[in-house]
Every structure is written in structure tokens, then in C-alpha cells.
């Protein structure tokens, strides 16, 4: 089962590399100029991207892999703290909205509207308030992560079986007990769906928050940097993207692992 899954993952990875390299070879042979001209700058070889990781990042400097690893750790800290802030705030807001029709009607439109304000507009303000640093990056990342958590918490808390609510009433259970012993456990699948979305969003949020906070030490800084030198070393940017993707996958995996430990329930489509 486990071996099968690993094989599937490898096969998909091989397929993707095959597509990339196949299209590159095909387009180069035919000199296609649409949608863009394909060469080693626009589409470097996959092995060049991976190989770049093991080249020095600058003359006599450390390996690129080393530099990117440090950058990923730096970004991971802001992303993780941002994820936690967003998850806790999003959950609390969802609980509040679920308990008051008035709050839900009054506040929810603003919660939704908050997500239409681009992060580019929010980031400079937060940097001004909190000073440039990893904490302001974390707060910006949390701005991206709380929303799915709020919406799914609200939905999940309301998904409790109405007869189970009746039973809790018949035991004369208070609101607090109904919340923690029935509604929150019922909301867990919804909550974890949101947390998975948020986990990857927090990495993206931290990366795009770094340049406005003028932080050079993270993956965001590395992306801006390698963007400037793209023409001379395209594989560096692609290598950075790999590392960023791995970080996102890692966050996703952490949440999935937590879900498997915390949520014990019927396998889908059983019972």
C-alpha cells in the first residue's frame, strides 16, 4: 500500500519531467516561437535546475543548496508562526460567528471583503506598524491563512447532526459542552481541509511578504535576487522555486499527519 503510493508519486514525477523535457526538445527542434521561444534560458533542463543546487551560489561561496536551505528555514519560521496566528484567529472568529446570527450577518461581509484587498496594499502598512522583520512577515502570512479557517469552522460547526444537538439538549448540556464535545469534533474534517489550504497559503504569504518588509534572508528575497540575474543563471530561480514548493509540501504534510493522528473516524464511504 505504502510502496504503491510511493511508486505512484515517482511515476507522476517522472511523467512531469518527461513532459517538460519532451516539450522542450519538440519545440526546439521545430523552432516554435509561439507561445514563447524555447531555449535553455526560457526552459532550462531539469537536471540543470537540480544541478544548480550543488554549484556555489557565488564565487567561492557556499553551495546554492546550502543558501536556499537557510533561506527556507527563515521563511518557514514566519510561515509557521503566521499559520498558527491565522489558524487560531480564524478558528476563534468562526466560533464567534457560529454562535451569533447577528455577528454572522454583520461581520461576515467584512471578513469576505478583507480577502479582496491585495496583500500588496496590506503589507506596507503592517511593516510600518510592526517594523520590518520576520514577525511582520508572519502577520502578513496570517492574513492569507485565517480566511479559509474561519469559513470552514463556521460551516463545520453548523454541520453537527441536529439529532445529536437534541441529545445534548436532553442531557441538559450547556453551550460550552455542546461546542467542545459535539460541534468542534463534528467540524474537524472541515477544519482540517481549511488548515491544509492555509498551510500552503502561509508559505506563499511569507514569501510574498518578505520583499515589502525588505527581508533578504528568506526565499522571497532569494526569488527577487535570482529574478534579477535570470538571464545569466536561469536555473537558480527554478531551483529556488523547487525549494519553495518543497517547503509548501512539507507544511501540507505536517497538517495531514496531524489530521491522521487527531481525527479518528470512519473511512470515507463506510458506515
Amino acid at each position, binding site marked *: 500500500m505504502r510502496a504503491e503510493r510511493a511508486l505512484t508519486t515517482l511515476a507522476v514525477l517522472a511523467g512531469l519531467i518527461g513532459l517538460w523535457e519532451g516539450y522542450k526538445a519538440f519545440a526546439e527542434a521545430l523552432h516554435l516561437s509561439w507561445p514563447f521561444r524555447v531555449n535553455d534560458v526560457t526552459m532550462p533542463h531539469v537536471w540543470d535546475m537540480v544541478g544548480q543546487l550543488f554549484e556555489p551560489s557565488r564565487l567561492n561561496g557556499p553551495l546554492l543548496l546550502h543558501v536556499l536551505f537557510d533561506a527556507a528555514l527563515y521563511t518557514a519560521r514566519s510561515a509557521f508562526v503566521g499559520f498558527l496566528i491565522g489558524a487560531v484567529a480564524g478558528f476563534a472568529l468562526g466560533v464567534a460567528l457560529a454562535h451569533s446570527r447577528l455577528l454572522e450577518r454583520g461581520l461576515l461581509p467584512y471578513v469576505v471583503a478583507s480577502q479582496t484587498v491585495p496583500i500588496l496594499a496590506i503589507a506596507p502598512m503592517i511593516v510600518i506598524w510592526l517594523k520590518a522583520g520576520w514577525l511582520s512577515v508572519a502577520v502578513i502570512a496570517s492574513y492569507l491563512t485565517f480566511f479559509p479557517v474561519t469559513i470552514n469552522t463556521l460551516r463545520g460547526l453548523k454541520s453537527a*447532526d441536529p*439529532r445529536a444537538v437534541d*441529545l445534548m439538549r*436532553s*442531557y441538559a448540556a450547556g453551550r460550552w459542552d455542546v461546542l467542545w*464535545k459535539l460541534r468542534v469534533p463534528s467540524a474537524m474534517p472541515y477544519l482540517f481541509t481549511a488548515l491544509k489550504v492555509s498551510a500552503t497559503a502561509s508559505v506563499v504569504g511569507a514569501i510574498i511578504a518578505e520583499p515589502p518588509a525588505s527581508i533578504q534572508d528568506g526565499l522571497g528575497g532569494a526569488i527577487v535576487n535570482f529574478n534579477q540575474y535570470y538571464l545569466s543563471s536561469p536555473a537558480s530561480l527554478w531551483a529556488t522555486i523547487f525549494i519553495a514548493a518543497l517547503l509548501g509540501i512539507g507544511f501540507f504534510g505536517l497538517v495531514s499527519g496531524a489530521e491522521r493522528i487527531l481525527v479518528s473516524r470512519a473511512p470515507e464511504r463506510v*458506515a
Partner: protein
Amino acid sequence: MTGGPPNASPDGAPAVSIRGMSKVFRGRGRGASEVRALEDIDLEVHPGEFVSLIGPSGCGKSTLLRIIGDLEQPTTGPVLVNAKPAHQARVDGDYGIVFQDSVLYDWRTVARNIALPLELAGWDRDRRSQRVTEMLELVDLTGFEHHHPWQLSGGMQQRVSIARALSFSPALLLMDEPFGALDEMTRERLNMELLRIWERSRCTVVFVTHSIAEAVFLSTRVAVMSARPGRIRGIVDVDLPQPRTNETRVDPRFFELVATVRRRLRGMEDDAGVVVTGEAEA
């Protein structure tokens, strides 16, 4: 489970007392129609009785059960449970409720499902686990305490649900078609088990069902209801000997009573509201 339930009614007071109760559901918005779900309901259930409510769909039997359990409010008429308003009885933990679906919590083991009402009532861990062990024995599920509900069959799930309802020794057990979703064999076996549990726990049972045979087999009295608006059209005393056994199901008296209830259900227009005392009709 020795002795009577601690929440038993004061001496002499009926377990359930309803007089001239009605329930109207009002639709929302302007021009919404009203549905008279229940009208002119009189019902008295004595401690230790097993009373079934039977009637066609839409006769309001589930609504009546929910009103007794303070899950719905009557539009008019008092509902007294153990000589208290239904609301007070609910707060005092007088009700154990079993629905058609077991409504178990997937994320809790069998033992923790049964312990849920005890947790809410503030029992300590030792008392809880002792009671859970007793209840598992009562419903014949010893050894399944660490299973999750989705690992059990439908009949076993319903037994867990009964154990949960009885865990805190409520005076009144309200059951809304508890065996309606089960196959006939399981249903008959659970009927026997329910009677055994009823005898041992000495609680009062109000039982909603679609099945005439089930109602007659289980009950001391059967309240026959009619629809639109929901009314109690007659109450049939079931004078079959206790305890009921598999022999009861082939007793000629059993068939007579089934026929009586069936006639009541069909010929609603005759002698409305008359309390039938159980003689077989000519």
C-alpha cells in the same frame, strides 16, 4: 442497575401527564400556512409503564414524543413529567432518548459514547468506567468498549445508543422508532432485549413505532393516533402476561390485540376518543 431509577417520580404522580395539549407549526413569512400537528391530546403514563404511540405518517407521534422530551414546545396545554414542567424534567436529567438512527459520535469509542451523558453530569472517571462496564453488560456488548461505532453492525449501534440513554438511570426512556431501520430478525431480538432491560431498570418507556406487532408485543398500553390533525383516537390496554417471551408472539390473545389495534387504525371515524379497555371487538 439495582433498585428503581433515582429520578423516579414522587409517589403517585404520573410519569407523564398531558391535558388538552395542542401543537401548531407556523410557517415563516407572510401568508405562510399553519399546520395543526397535534390537537386535544390527553395522555397519562404511569411510572413503570411501557406505552407505545402508533399511527400513520404525519400523525404527530414523533412530535408528541419530542414535546414530552422538551425538544419542542407545545402551543397550548401543560406537559408535566414526574409532576414537573417538561423543561425542569429535562434540566434534572429525567430523559433518556433513543432515535431511529443511533446518533453515536464517530470520534468516540463505544465506551466513551456511553459515558458522554455521565461526563456532562460531572461523574468522576472511576464511577463512569464502572457504570459503562455495567451498561455494556446490560446490552450484551462486553468486549466492544474500544471499538468505534462504524465498526459495529446497525443492531449493535442501536444497543450502544440504548446503553447511552440509560447510563444515567433516567426515569423516562423516550424512543422514536428505535428499531425502524433494522431488519426483522434483529428487530425481534432487540425487542426481547429491550423488555429485559425495561424490567431490570424499571424505567418508564414511551415508544414510537410504525409496527403494530411491535407495539402490541412490547407495550402495556398502545395509544392509537390519527393524522391531520394529530389526535389520540384510542388507547388499547395490552393484557398479555408479563414477562413477554417468544411464546407471546404466537399467543391467540396477541393476534386479537394486533387485530384490535389494526381496526382502530383503519376505522378511525368510529367512536373517536373512546378508551378501549382491551376486549376483543365483535
